[in-house]
Each structure stands twice: as C-alpha cells, then as structure tokens.
C-alpha cells in the first residue's frame, strides 16, 4: 500500500517538474510570452464581454448615429447602421476565438481518433481510410467548406462543421504517422505481451506519448482555422448579420472604407492581432515541446 503511494507521489512530482521545465523553455522565447499575453487579453475580453459593454450596444441600430467617427462615446466609431464598432469587436471576439478553438478541438478529436485507429490497427481499415483521405484532400479545401456551408445554410454551427470537415484528413495523416512510429516501440510490445486490451494500449500507452506532436500541430493550426472561418464569413458564407463577427464586419466595411477607414482598420486589426498571438504561442509551444528542436 505504502509502495503504491510512494510511486504515485514520484510520478505526480515528475509531471509537475516536466511542466516547469517546459514553461522555462517557453519563457525564454520573448515573442511567445508576448503572444501569450495578447492572447490572454483577447480571452479575457471574450469571457467578460458582457461586463465590458452590453451586447445590445453591438446590435442596436440607430439611424441618427450612423457612420460616426471614433469619439469618447463610441471608441471605434459606428457602422452604417449606427451600431457601436467597439461593442461589435468586443462581442465578435467570442465568435472568432471560439471558431478557431472549437474547430481545432473537434478536428483533433475526430481526426485524432480515426488516426489512432488507422495507425494502430493498420490493415484494410487503414487502407480504406487513407484512400478516402486522398479523395477528400483532392478537393480544394475552401471549395469543400463553401459547398458544405452552402448546402447546410450559413450560420455559426455549420461554419464549424465545414471548417472541421476540411481539416480532419490532415489530422488523420499527422496522427497516423505519429502513431506508426510509436507502435513499433518496445514498451508497446511489452504491453501487448502482458495481455493489455487494445483500448488500454491505444489510450493509456500510445496516446500520452503521441500527445506532444499532436498538440504542437493543433496549436499551429488554431490561427489558420480562425482565419479560414473569418474568410468564409467575409464572403458571406459564415456568421450572419446582425451577429457581430470580425470577418463579416470587414465585408460590411467594403463600401464605406474610403470615408470611414476605421470600419476597416479596427476589425481587421482584431483579426490580425489575435491570429498573430495564436501564431506566436504556437511557435513557442513547438519550440518548447518538440524534442527534435531541443539542442
């Protein structure tokens, strides 16, 4: 009994140590820390959006206040329908950030699961899935996403489905290749020889060892998923008015940008800045977690 407690104690400590080791590696990268700070600000804004400015301000239209330049009343001015741009950006952060995170989450979950099965079981199942991936990859991703959104209807849920769908094949391939390199390791043979069930081997022995590369891949992808979602919203195939979303706001700004450039600059900068912070964090995580780059 005591023995077990002891080993568990050692195990948990080494986990904590590993975290601090990774964190100290991450900390060295100043750009990555800056990215993390910006990202935290965006996350806080998204979480506390209702405290910062009520949602009504983002969708209430008022013809008297349309196209006003930034002022103390409307920090970022108002758009063509008299809606407060600052409020729309604050509340838009919820859509844009969650689009990036949710699509990544679902595609890692689904793609990861299929990828593990492919890499672990191999055989016919693997062949069929890989051929299907070849087919899916041969359709240009944006076109595929557009077709999905067009067929299901343009709204946030379907946008998530579309973006997730186009990124799943990529994750299947990445996860599969990672798993293939692990399946051949001795401790997997050992586990098999001990009579562990497939599920236990897959999720207790293989998955933790594959987590690093998968997480790195995922964190590098959040920004591009967010940009893809914003792009689809921009061409009107994503989040619909009046819901505030940065890509759709840019599309709204098209006809007014000459006289009201702030309509273009604020939402665009919000997209670029959040994507930049995600990219910096992704790069930092890769450098800290990828042992190949550790020299």
């Amino acid at each position, binding site marked *: 009994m005591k023995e077990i407690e002891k080993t568990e104690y050692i195990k948990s400590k080494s986990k904590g140590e590993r975290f601090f080791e990774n964190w100290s590696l991450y900390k060295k990268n100043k*750009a990555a820390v800056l990215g993390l700070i910006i990202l935290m600000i965006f996350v806080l804004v998204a979480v506390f959006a209702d405290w910062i400015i009520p949602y009504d301000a983002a969708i209430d239209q008022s013809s008297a206040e349309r196209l006003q330049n930034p002022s103390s009343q409307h920090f970022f001015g108002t758009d063509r329908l008299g809606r407060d741009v600052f409020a729309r950006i604050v509340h838009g952060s919820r859509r844009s950030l969650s689009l990036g995170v949710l699509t990544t989450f679902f595609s890692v979950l689904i793609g990861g699961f299929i990828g593990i099965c492919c890499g672990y079981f191999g055989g016919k199942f693997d062949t069929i899935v890989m051929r*299907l991936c*070849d*087919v*899916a990859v*041969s*359709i*240009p*991703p*944006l*076109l*595929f996403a*557009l*077709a*999905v959104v*067009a*067929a*299901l209807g343009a709204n946030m849920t379907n946008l998530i489905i579309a973006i997730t769908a186009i990124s799943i094949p990529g994750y299947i391939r990445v996860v599969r290749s990672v798993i293939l390199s692990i399946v051949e390791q001795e401790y997997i043979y050992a586990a098999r020889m001990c009579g562990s069930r497939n599920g236990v081997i897959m999720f207790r022995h293989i998955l933790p060892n594959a987590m690093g590369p998968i997480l790195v891949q995922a964190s590098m992808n959040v*920004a591009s998923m967010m*940009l893809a979602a*914003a*792009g689809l919203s*921009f*061409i*009107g*195939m994503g989040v619909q008015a009046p819901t505030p979303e940065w*890509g759709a706001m*840019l599309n709204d*700004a*098209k006809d007014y*940008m*000459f006289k009201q*450039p702030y309509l*273009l600059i604020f939402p*665009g900068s919000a*997209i*670029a*800045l959040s*994507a*930049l912070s*995600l*990219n*910096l964090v992704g*790069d930092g995580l890769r450098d800290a977690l990828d042992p190949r780059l550790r*020299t």
Partner: protein
Amino acid sequence: MKGVEKTVLKYIFKRLLFIVPTLLGGILIVFSIMNLTPGDPGRQILGMNAKQEQVDQLNHELGYDKPFFTRFGEYCIDLSHGDLGTSYRTRRPFTEELVSRIPNTLKIGLSAFVLSSIIGISLGILAAVRQYSLVDTFSSVTAILFASIPGFFLGMILIYVFGLKLGWLPTFGASSFKHFVMPVATLTVATSVSLLRLTRSTMLDAIRQDYIRTATAKGCSKNRIYWKHALKNAILPVITVMGMSAGTVMGGTVIIESVFAIPGMGTYMLTAIRAKDIPVVMSSTVLLSLAFCLIMILVDILCAIIDPRIRERSIG
C-alpha cells in the same frame, strides 16, 4: 536504362489512372452535399413568391426532378464525353463561361504562384544560411506578421492606400495590367509566407547534418556546401509544400477575386454555390480537383527524380 524508363512510365501511368476513382469520389461527395439538402434550383431562381407549378415546371426543364443517382450518372456520362454541363441559372454552357473567365484566374494564380515560390524559397534559404542575421530576423518577423494578416484584409488595405488615397491603381475589375497588380501582390504575400518558413526550417535541418560537417571538414567552399549538399536535401519538402501552396493559391483566388471584384472562376463559383447552380459547382470542382491531382502527381514525380530513395520505394 531502358528498363528504368519503362518502370517510371508505368508508375506515371498508374498514378494518372488513379485520378479517375479519386475524382469520382470527390464528385460524389460534393454532388451529395449539394443535393441532399433542402431547397431546389427552381425555387432559388424564381424566388419565394413563385407558384409551386412554375417551380416544378422549371425543375422538370432543368432535369432536377429525376432521382439522385440518375442525375449523378447522367452527369458522369456527360463528363466522360467532355460535356461540362449547362448552368441552371444563366442557361449558358459552362465551357462558355470558363473560356471568358479562366484567363483572369490563371493570370492571378500563376503569377502569384511563381512569384511566391521565388520570393519564399530564396528568402527561406538566405534566412537559414545566415541564421540569426539581420536578413533572418527580418524575414522571420515579416513572415509571422503576414501569416497573421488574412488576404482579404491585406487586399482591402492595399485598395485603401494605393487605390483610394494615392489613386495609383484601379480598385476593381480586370481590364488592364494595372488591375492585376494588387490582387497578385496580395496573393503572393499570403502564399510566400508558408513557403519561406518551411524552406528555412528544412534548410536549417539539412545544414545541421553530419555530412555537412564532413563537407566542411574536407574543405568544400561554403557556396558548394549550401547549394550542392544542403539544398538538394532540403528541396524535397519544399517541392511538396509548393504543390500544396498551389492548392492554397486556388482557394485564395476565390476570396481575392471577390475582394477586387474580378470576373474570374472564383467569383463565378461563389455565385454558383450561393444559387445552388449544381452543374457549375460540379464542373468547377472537377476542374479544380483535376488540376490539384495533376500538380500532386507532378510533385511526386519530381521528388522521385531528385531523390533515389523515394524512386526506389514508390516506383521500384
């Protein structure tokens, strides 16, 4: 020698043959997505207020009232005869629109692809060879900045600065050389970024290898090491990514064309998707996928030519 050529040709033929099932699969997927959802083209074209009889009549004329697999089969048969179908919306044959629109898309796509390959790869090599130098820092910072700015935002900034404020370049349309400057620039920047980052990291990987140390030790000149030993090993993933960036360019043209209001395939496809103009969507998908498949095969063949190990594995 003749035997080698024969196997290579056989390999290429096999890959080309494999396009057919791949394309059929792709067609089936997109065809199902476009069809298995509510809404019909008759209603789309005539509007919400049209009588149901008129809608049915139009659907019948378009052949939309036939069962799903009949239409799928008919489409595939037409396709195998080289008939790309007729638009539901405009009733004009697809090929007619294609001929008038594809030059614009090709101009933008090809120039952006060539330019971004040149810029991305050469800057990437330079950054890796002079790691931590000014060039490296500058290009890395620029790369991560531009990787975060979406193409449509960059395009709009360009329109604002060079089109509206300075008045140097036209902001929409495609009637002269000047019209293509901003779209090509936008797409080039967006595509070259990923190429730059990848070239840099693979080149760095290659430079750190033992055989580079050996080459240095035996007194090879720096240039010879970089251009002969390192680049040859770093170029493979770069070629693969060039192939994929061709795909990015294809997708990018859709958004860029809509930012700059260019009458190309992208805007055509976008309106077709919105209006459920199934034949147009299908034929665009087929053409794009075919182009993409061919590029990927070309990439694999190039890789096999450069790297004997791959040649051995995939052809041998």
